[in-house]
């Protein structure tokens, strides 16, 4: 599936969740299911700035597609990471570098990604795009 198709699907999944706590319960659920990152990858270098909660991310290129692994110490953030990864993981680097993550707005999560939240998510999204761009140049 392409990035926009996945976004469409996520929006559909979230649509029935009208109350905030339903959404949060889903995020918490997704957060619990997100694979835990190996401690060895939770390095300073992989850490996104964000003094409220920590976010780590690594990536590698496989056949022109980018594979991300990410984690956080906060559960709801893990949930948000989980859906973000759903969208970007295994996508071609050119698609990632030019993508518009409109689903965050639609499902009402965009405010969590503003830089002033200091939870590391804003840097995470930036990292994902920058990283895809770099892979693009490398090729």
């Amino acid at each position: 599936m392409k990035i926009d198709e996945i976004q469409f699907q996520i929006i559909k999944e979230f649509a029935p969740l009208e109350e905030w706590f339903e959404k949060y319960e889903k995020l918490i659920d997704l957060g619990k299911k997100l694979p835990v990152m190996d401690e060895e990858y939770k390095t300073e270098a992989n850490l996104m700035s964000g003094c409220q909660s920590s976010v780590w991310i690594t990536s590698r290129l496989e056949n022109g597609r980018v594979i991300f692994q990410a984690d956080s110490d906060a559960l709801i953030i893990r949930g948000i990471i989980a859906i973000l990864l759903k969208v970007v993981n295994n996508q071609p680097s050119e698609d990632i570098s030019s993508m518009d993550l409109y689903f965050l707005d639609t499902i009402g999560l965009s405010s969590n990604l503003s830089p002033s939240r200091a939870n590391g998510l804003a840097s995470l999204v930036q990292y994902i795009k920058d990283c895809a761009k770099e892979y693009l140049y490398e090729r």
Partner: protein
Amino acid sequence: MFDINKIRSDFPIINEKVYGRPLIYLDNAATTQKPLVVLNKTTEFYKTINSNIHRGVHYLSEQASAAYENARKTVKDFINARSLTEVIFTRSTTESINLLADSFGNTYVREGDEIIITEMEHHSNIVPWQVLCERRGAHLKIIPFDDNGLLLIDKLHDLINIKTKLIAINHVSNALGVVNPVKDIIRMAHQHNIPVLIDGAQSIQHLPVDVQDLDCDFLAFSGHKMYAETGVGILYGKEKWLEAMPPYQTGGGMITSVSFDETKFAGLPQKFEAGTVNYVGAISLAAAIEYLRGIGMKNVFTHEKELLDYTVKQLNGMDDLTIYGNSPNRCGTISFNLNGIHPYDVGMILDKLGIAIRTGNHCTEPVMRHFGIKGTIRASFAVYNTRDEIDVLVDGIKKAREMLL
């Protein structure tokens, strides 16, 4: 008489809604809300007599200058300073401490000297001293605290020596709410002729602070944390110190004459007030002080103490919850965590319930390190908070735990 309904009606924001729910504002240690009298005072000032202060020949300037100097008098009376020259208007607690670190530090602190702070200082009362020590080749010494948040005063005895040039210590911890025995520390320090700076950022709004009674040499605090508008703070200093200290920032207003060969500096307090000060900020601070006086600092203290005790009682009744700093002597602030749950997760859920608390390290990383945690959930109180609001908070915490476990 302490009339909470009257007080709540003084603060317009208190009746706002967040996500359709009544706002429960418990982030007062970060900044307090402002009563209408303060907002009206400054707006009225701008609408009728605004003009740059001092050196003006005209009516508005005269009125504005008088209002500004009256504000200084209001602050002086509030903290019971001996004279107006001891009250310096700054931008904030942080600037007050930077001023002191620069001006006092460069004058009195030499290579090998020592400055004592505590393990529970706000970054604003750590970093300026670190920078000073690095610049002068001096050393920072730390008074530790125990797991209840009590300073190990005995250690102070060991730390004080002939090289100690200053002790800088917070009156009330913004991370733990602990009230420190500053009077004892000051007495001890003065036996060795060591001056003491009190960081009053978290005490001035909660309890009566009398600089003559404390006998502190310096006191720093921020207007925005005591119901005044942003951008104004105070550095109180005993005249003998301020007289001996050189200017910090320089420019217009703090000189008596300027030439390219020689510049002469003005006397106190102008010496430390370079350029156009935030004179409307000063006027808002005076208005906030008048407001607090109208209620009475003792009443403020009693009300907030009651709130804190009530909160402690409610939280103590919860399983899997850790309160940090169980000192009997606390005020204004309480820090805790749900065991095994990241404070940020709790904060996000409380937010959706309309409850504004703060999570994180509260600019006190050493305190977090002490407890081996990344952050806490902090609820901090003001004069307008109520038990009902605490109940909503406690319900919110229960809801958060339910969702997150």
